[in-house]
């Protein structure tokens, strides 16, 4: 008799040092269903799935595939068992072609590489209903192409159970629809699918059942048809919480920071930000939405003085800040914090203590050749108390703190400096809901104090609730600046893909140019000259 479940996990526990990632977790996957694995960031979803794909080994517990107990000691064994996983960070060799990325994992590839492999891979992809260029290198692929390649890869290896880790995080609304139709088709073909996510609407949309994890522990599994978003949230977060983010109304001041016709190149020398104009007033939060890698990072870096600009104006309270060193820009009260994907790369020195991280931006202000750690320790103590950072001491390396606390330390330091403009990118990246709310509150408090905030975000729901206005970027171009309470996710999604351009929605002026600008006529004239000059240069 065939077993009911494709996968059964019983009593799985996994620890990393002192951190318990999964504690006594049970999970079942029926044949031919789509199971959503729901949980907040840090709830142990990925860890659990990595034990199915052979990356991690459970400390204890049992895994059954088709009713047979197995031990999955390596990805190779997972593959033989018919389990394939599409990781959140794609596992592709950049310098290889699409075909070779698949071929390298083929069971019996023969000894010599035949040219025929390209055609074979293309035909195989077509059989599954995908169109790919087998000779294209992974490095030259867009994110959605890479994801498609990853899916083809697991299908090609004959996976019956397919796990997708946060597949929608990098996609636009339209691309998500496409992905979901692929998943439905795969399900009809008899595949069993687990999709990891923390987005409720997607859970409701795609899944047959939902399994919920909270802080590493298994909560329950329910049929999607018999539940709703509110109930799922409660299971996920553990208590009834208010899903509404505050948007206090604050009297706005004149523009604090005005950006006009800004053009920036990225590290590869391609145009990352293309003639972008916008402004931030004191007491408002301007959101920046866009697909990952649409110039957000370059924009933040340019404002902070970390990246040279090609042309354009950046006026802070009437002063031009173009070309100023990062230190001077800091002193003017512009704070920038950017949480990269690894969450520790920029803004913090992970191996150093909280104290040492506190003095990062002002260690040079004291006299003499020595660092004043006393002041740093006091600042650390203050931030720990005010923002409720959980840490053994002020001397604990930042790396040892949990994600939420790391980000509190970072924002705490920025706010302590008393900035008048805060540029913050992905400040809640990887945080659970409670920590995220703590961060939103910090930002709102700053807004009430008259600070102008540029909030680069990922989650459109959050941005719609938190921001006053939202600027949408698509491939470095502004697609418009819309009022958060007047727009919708669908509209934003269309703008993000470039299908909808609202730059000239208001006929009297293009989006992003303030009526009461601080930019002088002379500066505008210079800008014009600059541009005509750069055009001549191009000819």
């Amino acid at each position, binding site marked *: 008799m065939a077993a009911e479940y494709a996968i059964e996990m019983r009593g799985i526990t996994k620890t*990393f040092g002192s951190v318990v990632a999964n504690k006594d977790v049970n999970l079942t996957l029926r044949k031919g269903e789509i199971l959503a694995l729901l949980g907040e960031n840090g709830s142990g979803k990925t860890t659990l799935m990595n034990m199915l794909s052979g990356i991690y080994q459970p400390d204890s517990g049992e895994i059954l595939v088709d009713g047979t107990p197995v031990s999955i000691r390596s990805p190779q064994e997972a593959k033989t068992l018919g389990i394939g996983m599409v990781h959140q960070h794609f596992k592709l060799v950049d310098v290889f072609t699409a075909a070779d990325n698949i071929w390298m994992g083929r069971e019996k590839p023969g000894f010599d590489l035949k040219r025929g492999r390209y055609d074979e891979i293309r035909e195989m992809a077509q059989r599954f209903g995908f169109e790919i260029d087998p000779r294209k290198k992974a490095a030259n692929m867009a994110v959605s192409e890479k994801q498609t390649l990853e899916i083809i890869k697991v299908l090609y290896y004959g996976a019956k159970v397919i796990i997708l880790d946060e597949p929608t995080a990098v996609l636009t609304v339209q691309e998500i629809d496409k992905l979901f139709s692929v998943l439905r088709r795969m399900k009809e073909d008899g595949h069993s699918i687990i999709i990891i996510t923390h987005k409720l609407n997607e859970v409701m949309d795609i899944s047959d059942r939902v399994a919920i994890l909270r802080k590493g522990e298994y909560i329950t599994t329910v049929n999607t048809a018999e539940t709703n978003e509110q109930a799922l949230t409660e299971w996920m977060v553990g208590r009834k919480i208010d899903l509404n983010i505050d948007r206090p109304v604050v009297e706005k001041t004149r523009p604090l920071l005005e950006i006009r016709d800004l053009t920036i190149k990225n590290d590869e020398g391609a145009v990352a930000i293309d003639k972008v104009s916008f402004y931030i007033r004191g007491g408002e939060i301007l959101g920046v939405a866009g697909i990952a890698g649409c110039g957000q990072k370059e924009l933040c870096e340019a404002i902070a003085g970390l990246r040279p600009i090609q042309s354009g104006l950046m006026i802070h309270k009437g002063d031009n800040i173009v070309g100023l060193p990062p230190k001077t820009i800091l002193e003017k009260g512009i704070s920038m914090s950017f949480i990269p994907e690894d969450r520790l790369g920029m803004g913090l020195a992970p191996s150093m203590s909280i104290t040492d991280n506190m003095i990062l931006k002002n260690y040079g202000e004291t006299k003499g050749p020595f*660092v004043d750690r006393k002041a740093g320790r006091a600042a650390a103590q203050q931030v720990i108390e005010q923002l409720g950072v959980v840490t053994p001491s002020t001397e604990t390396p930042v790396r040892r703190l949990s994600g939420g606390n790391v980000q509190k330390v970072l924002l705490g330091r920025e706010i302590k400096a008393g900035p008048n403009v805060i540029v913050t990118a992905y400040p809640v990246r990887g945080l659970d809901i409670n920590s995220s709310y703590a961060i939103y509150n910090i930002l709102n408090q700053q807004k009430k104090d008259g600070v102008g905030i540029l909030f680069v975000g990922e989650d459109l729901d959050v941005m719609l609730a938190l921001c006053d206005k939202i600027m949408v970027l698509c491939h470095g171009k502004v697609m418009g600046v819309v009022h958060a309470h007047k727009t919708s996710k669908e509209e934003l999604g269309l703008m993000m893909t470039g299908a909808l351009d609202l730059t000239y929605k208001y006929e009297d002026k293009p989006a992003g140019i303030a009526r009461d600008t601080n930019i002088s006529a002379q500066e505008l004239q210079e800008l014009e000259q600059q541009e005509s000059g750069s055009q001549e240069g191009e000819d």
Partner: protein
Amino acid sequence: MHFHIVKRDSCPFWKKLCLYLAAVAAALVLGGLLLLVMGVDPIAYYQRMFTMGMVGNKIAYKTFENYLKVFVPLVLTSVALSLAFKMRFWNIGGEGQFILGAVAAAAVALKLKDSLPQGVVLILMCLAGMAAAGVYGALAAVLKVKFGTNETLMTLMLNYVALYFLIFLGETQAEWNFFLDTSSARPVFFNFGKEVAFPRIMIGKFGLNVCVLLTLLIGVLVYCYLKYSKHGYEIAVVGDSAGTAHYAGMKVNAIVLRTVFLSACLIGLAAAFKVGTVGILSTSFTDDVGWTGVIVAWLAQLNTGIIFVVSALISMLQHGSTVAAATFAQVDSSFADMLQGAILFLVLAADFFIRFQVVRAQKGGSVNGNG
């Protein structure tokens, strides 16, 4: 039942110490077995090696002086390298920097020994050695910050360029070559040891070279520099995350250049100390301190204090084996290299158990495993 490995959060100090000691002991046992095969009493050999033959020796002070001659260049080079390593700048060009420092210091000594007082000459030697080595080290740093040239491979290449330059000086008899002794028919380096030498403080018969004191002083200074100064703070931040340093408004490139220059300067100083102590160049002048220094700095995990301890032990091994070779003729002096290698291999292995933990799966499908 099967095992897998996981990373440790931290490892208690006593456990670390025990593991390292066990590694050293295991290496000594292995070496001892080899000695037994050769028909040498390992205990007698090790005793001779570790005491460096000082016990019951009338001229033990002499041995200790010689020991310090090995110790000073090694420890100073290791401390210097640790500065660059802290910044994750993998300067393995200690050999080349040491050579250029030595050549510059020797040039000063040879050119000025007759015209200036010895004290002034010595100071100028130190400065010249530091400048030459510093510039040579900074070259790799400039290329790194300007073009992103891999510094490990670059400094490696520069080592050999410097080495052949030294050999060129040592083997080319010509009018201009003031490095050679003109009174000799064969090309040999000029020995200025009688005219230029660092002063020694006599404690009984034992002469304590001022270089030893200066080295200790530099050790303390570097420790404080790294721990308390703004520069030290910058080095730590750059080493931890260059992106963060940049973001905090630090001039990362300038910090890298400055620190590598300083690091190479100290190596040049170590070379000048050695030149002013032995009084003559040779084509094997470095005694491999540039290589050994890399290993010492890494073994000591860039901790200045521990660098002194590790250097003292490695010097003991190296000098002790030369001493022991005099008594135990059948044991080649290369035995020390092998022993040193074995110790390092085992310490590297021990390090694994400090960073990782071997865990046994408690329960699961392992019994009925598919494999």
